[in-house]
Every structure is written in structure tokens, then in C-alpha cells.
């Protein structure tokens, strides 16, 4: 049984269509992350799932039940908000039990559920405080407690970590992930932060302009992005996308960056990709290379030596981050980012030698911006 199924969902605000036919389905226990830039429709989609906005067309099913006309309180969901939305005049205890009070859950059961959640989240000591007396992380935890106590079919998170400072955000990210593993609940999580998406999700839906660009597991999203938008949105620094020309010789298919220039670069396309890229032979494509696929010259990618192509390119700038050094280089006239080991010193302005991993090359159709291979 699918925990959440969304079919042909459309929604418009006035003249503007904000959701243009969304189809998603996840099973019980999955962690779905809706990710995209602001205004892509992800929060609206979450609100429609919650029942806080009406669906225009299409259906929303939760646990096999169509809930289009079911009030939010009867959808068997719980939600954690960006601003936490804790009731400011109630204590932590009241905040957590308010929902049960509304549903007329008997007192002893309320106490039991409260105690369980407070122990799970370690907020027992805070129960009698008001939200204004809590730190950001504590508020976050109380908001989670309010959701957890309901033990719902579906947890909805609306950018719950974006109001926290960077350090706390990383900690809470891990906590939510562990919580998910421990209680095995189904979660839908909205964020604009692609790192949150990558680290937490079992499945990611990348949204842009009211459409789902790609709906897949994190690895596929990262390595085989379905569109140029996904390629550029996921990953930091983002994937390099440069114009290239596909040519075929006796030795197989190759992509040429800066074709015709003296510094043109020729990259052999691996056989697995070449089969699908055939129709684009002798045509322009967009070539995608992850920065980590361009490394120092003595790096070897995989067992097959053919996959590590040596290249030489002038270094324009370096950004040492400590763990690695990001290099901006010029390759066949195009600017590309590479990631090299931190102990390599690269003089700016001088050419340097790198190794390029061709296994993870992506080829996009420049017209449709879709992945070819």
C-alpha cells in the first residue's frame, strides 16, 4: 500500500498555475524530500497534502484513502512548520497536548503520549515553559514533539530547519534522520537546501516552476539528473555544464569541448552512454561534469584506466576550503570547476594537469534540456 499518492494534481492562484500536474507516489516508511528554489510550488504542494489548500484538479491519497475533501484534522497527518508555529500563550505541555484535547483523547492517554514523546525528544525538563523561554533548537524539538505525539500516518515538514543557525541545522538534520529510522514513519519534507535533500531523503522530488523535474532516489538524482535544471540545482558547487560536440571515430564516441579551438579537449564517452547518445552523433550537446570528477593528475577513477583522462588547463582561481581545494579552470574556452586534494599547490595563471573521470559524464539535449545519456 502506498502511504501517499498524488495524481495529476493541479493548483492555480488566480491566473497563475502553481502546480502543473504533479504525480508522486511513496510507500510506507519512506522519506520524501520536495526540493526546489523558492516559488517552485513545493510548499503549496505540501499545503495541499495537508489539506490547508484545496487541490484544483487531481487526487491526493493518504494511506489508500482519497482525502481531497477531508479536513486537515481528519487526514491523519502531523506537520512541523518553518516558524515552528508554537502557540505562544501555551506551555510546552499544552502545545503538545492541544491536538489530543481537540480530539477528546482521555487525560490518562494524553499524559502517557506526552511522557513518551518528551522522553524520546529529551524535553521533559521544558514541559512547563512557554515557547518564548526556549532556544531555537528547543522550539524545534517541541514542534517535532507536537507532531510525534499524534503518531500519524504521514509527517509533513515545511522547511523546519531554515530558521536555525548552521551548526544546529546539521545536528537537527541528523536527529530527524535518526528519528525517521527509529520510528519508521512516512515523512514528506520540504526544503530549498539540496544538502538536506541529499542527506535525509530516501526519495527526492526536484521541483521547478510547478513541475516535478525528477522523482528518484538521491543517488540517481545526483549522478543521472534528468534535466539541466536538476543538474545545476543539486550539488555544491554545482555540476559543470558546458557546450560540447559529439563526434564518432573508430575508437568510439567522443565529446569535444571548444571544438575547433587550439585548446579543444576531447573526452571519450564510455560505452554504456554511447549507445543512448548515438542519435546525437555530430550534433551539439550540453556536457555535464561534476566538479569532483576533475581532480589532480595522479588520481585514478575506477579500475579501468581508460576512464581517467589526463587534461591540461590554465588555473584561474583557487578556493581552499580545508578539506579540499576548488579550482576554477579554463577548458576549451569554458570555465569549469574542479576539486583537488588540499595538499596540492596550484599557481594561479599557470596551466596545470588534471585527471578527468568520464564514467559520470552526463549528456543533455540542448533543445529540451533533458538527459540523453
Amino acid at each position: 500500500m502506498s502511504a501517499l499518492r498524488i495524481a495529476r494534481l493541479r493548483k492555480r492562484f488566480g491566473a497563475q498555475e502553481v502546480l502543473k500536474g504533479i504525480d508522486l507516489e511513496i510507500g510506507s516508511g519512506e522519506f520524501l524530500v520536495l526540493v526546489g528554489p523558492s516559488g517552485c510550488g513545493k510548499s503549496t504542494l505540501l499545503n495541499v497534502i495537508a489539506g490547508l489548500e484545496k487541490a484544483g484538479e487531481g487526487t491526493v491519497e493518504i494511506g489508500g484513502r482519497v482525502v481531497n475533501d477531508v479536513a486537515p484534522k481528519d487526514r491523519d497527518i502531523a506537520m512541523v512548520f518553518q516558524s515552528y508555529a508554537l502557540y505562544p500563550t501555551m506551555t510546552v505541555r499544552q502545545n503538545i497536548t492541544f491536538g489530543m484535547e481537540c480530539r477528546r483523547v482521555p487525560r490518562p492517554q494524553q499524559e502517557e503520549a506526552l511522557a513518551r514523546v518528551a522522553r524520546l525528544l529529551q524535553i521533559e525538563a521544558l514541559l512547563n515553559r512557554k515557547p518564548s523561554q526556549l532556544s531555537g533548537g528547543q522550539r524545534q524539538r517541541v514542534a517535532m514533539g507536537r507532531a510525534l505525539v499524534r503518531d500519524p500516518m504521514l509527517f509533513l515538514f515545511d522547511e523546519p530547519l531554515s530558521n536555525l543557525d548552521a551548526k544546529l541545522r546539521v545536528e537537527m538534520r541528523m536527529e530527524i534522520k535518526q528519528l525517521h529510522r527509529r520510528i519508521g514513519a512516512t515523512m514528506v519534507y520540504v526544503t530549498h537546501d539540496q544538502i538536506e535533500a541529499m542527506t535525509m531523503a530516501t526519495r527526492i522530488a526536484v521541483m521547478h516552476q510547478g513541475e516535478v523535474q525528477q522523482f528518484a532516489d538521491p543517488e540517481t538524482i545526483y549522478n543521472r539528473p534528468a534535466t539541466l535544471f536538476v543538474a545545476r540545482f543539486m550539488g555544491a558547487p554545482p555540476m559543470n555544464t558546458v557546450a560540447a560536440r559529439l563526434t564518432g571515430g573508430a575508437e568510439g564516441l567522443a565529446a569535444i569541448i571548444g571544438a575547433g579551438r587550439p585548446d579543444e579537449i576531447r573526452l571519450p564517452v564510455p560505452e554504456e552512454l554511447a549507445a543512448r547518445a548515438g542519435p546525437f552523433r555530430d550534433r551539439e550537446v550540453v556536457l555535464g561534469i561534476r566538479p569532483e570528477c576533475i581532480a589532480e593528475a595522479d588520481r585514478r577513477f575506477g579500475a579501468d584506466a581508460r576512464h581517467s583522462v589526463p587534461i591540461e588547463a590554465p588555473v584561474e582561481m583557487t578556493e581552499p576550503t580545508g578539506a579540499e581545494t576548488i579550482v576554477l579552470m579554463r577548458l576549451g574556452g569554458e570555465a569549469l570547476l574542479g576539486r583537488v586534494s588540499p595538499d596540492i599547490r596550484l599557481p594561479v595563471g599557470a596551466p596545470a594537469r588534471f585527471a578527468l573521470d568520464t564514467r559520470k559524464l552526463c549528456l543533455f539535449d540542448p533543445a529540451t534540456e533533458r538527459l540523453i545519456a
Partner: protein
Amino acid sequence: MTPDPGPATAPAAPALDAPRAAARRAAARPAWRDAIGRWLPHLVLWPPLLVSVVHVLGFTGYTTWMSFTASTLMPDYEWVGLRNYTAVLNSRNWQIATDNLLIYGAGFVVLTTALGLLLAVLIDQRVRGENLFRTIYLYPMAVSFVVTGTVWAWLLNPSIGIQRLVRSMGWGGFRFDWLVDREMAIYTIVIAGAWQASGFAMALFLAGIRSVDADLYKAAQVDGAGPWRIYRRVVLPAIWPIFIAVLVILLQYTIKTFDLVRALTGGGPGIATQLPALVVYDLMFQRGLLGRGSAAAVMMLLSLLLVLVPYFGFMRWRRHREARHG
């Protein structure tokens, strides 16, 4: 802020595997209760909203309609076109009232704004006892115009007020008899009005001055501007919307002025301090000419709209502009 130890470090927490019965129960509520739940808010919500809307639109519409009828003591629905309006406009009473409105309006608005601004700037000098001064300057707004009008009538009455006091102190020829002077009586209303409302203007200006970004002061000081220059070039230009708000509110008061005149001069001497609001009351309830009274009231409303419509337009424009510029 030290992050609290999370469950990450906690000993194995109990799994939330309790039965989902509690959540399921919610679906089993009878339909009629849901129906009531849906409709009751509307039943409670709409009557007061409707009453307010009808009160504003309906009453305005009715009085406007009356102004085109031959109503006298009782409503009479015979249509007479603009006859009431021409009659009112041609009456000496109304002409004096509108002349007075202009004099009083100009004097009152200018004096009140100037006093209010001066007081606000004085109070803004980090003075001791700021609260006391503010309380003193603003208390007239808490008191009825009837009360203040009555008291000012005594003070300005030459036979028992200030003139009498000054004369008894030795200046035998001192004259301050504006209250009974046909030419000058209207200015007594300006004085009493400004006395009553200038504290309000002060409060608005002070709120505005205090809301100016403190960094602006610092920047101006770093630029070497003295206090006077900071007010003139930085603070006052920054609070120009407050000036407009004060102006509109005071003009609105001007047009509606009634109680103060009733208590201070009663419109006299003769009809020397007649104002439109008094003319309306006089026509409707003393002469029993509802049609003409309504026409005069509609003209009051029109003059009010003359002030308010541009103001609301201006506010909309500002909001729009702010929204566009983030």
C-alpha cells in the same frame, strides 16, 4: 546558545509503536456535528459584519436620497432634485459656515501642527520627566469637547475670564473679548481646538521621530551635522508621511467639529461662529427641514471625501511602491 544533547546520544528510546486507534477515532464523528461545525462560525461571523456594512452603506445611501426629497419634519419621498442643495448653498447661514470652516480649518491645522511638532522636538531632547510632560500635553484628548469648550468659554469670557484677571492686576485698558466679537470669535475656537488636539499631533510626531533608524542619526553625526541640521535635513524629511497623516486627521476633525463650538460659543455671537456641522443639526432638528439638513450633511461628506480619497489613494500608491521595491 549551547545546543542541548539530542536523542542522538540518548540510550535506546522506546519506539512509537502504540496503536493508531486514537487518530482513527477522529473519522467517526457524526455528520450532523460536522455540519454544525461548518455553519456555526458563519452564523456568528456574518451578522456583525453585515450590520456594520449596512450601517455604513445603507445610512449613507438613505441620507443621500433624503437630500433629494422634499422632507421636512418627517421623511417625504417626493423627489425635488437639487433644490435642497441650492437652498442650502444660497443661505447666509451656510455661506458663513463655510467661510468660517476655511478660517478655522487653516488656523487650527497650522497652529496644531506647529505646536505638536515643536513639543515633539522639545520632548525628544532626552529631557527628564518626559512622561510627565507627555501626559500633561495629551490629557485634553481624553476629555470631552463639551468640558473643554465650557471651560474655555469661561476663560475667554471678558467679564469673568482672562480680561477681567489682567484688568484686576492693574492694566485697566486690557481687552481680550474675542469671544463676544463677531470678527474674532472664530479664533477662540482655533485656540481651544489647538489646545485640545496639539498633544495628539505631538504624540504622532514623537512616534515618528522615535521610529527613525538610529543609524541615520549616527551617520549624520559622523558627517558633522549639528542637532538642528539633523532635524531639518534628516529626521523631518524621513517622517514626511507623518505630516500627511497629521494633516488628514486634523482636516477631518475640522470638518466634523461640532461639540466644541456648541459648548464654547454656541455658534454665536449671532451666527458668527457657525460651522457646517452646526448648520446640519440646526436644519434637521431645530427648523425641521430634514431634506435640507441631509443636503448639508452630504456636502459635509463630500468635503471629507475631498480630503480622504486623495489620502487613501496616496497610501495605496505608497504600499504599492514599497511592495515593488521590497
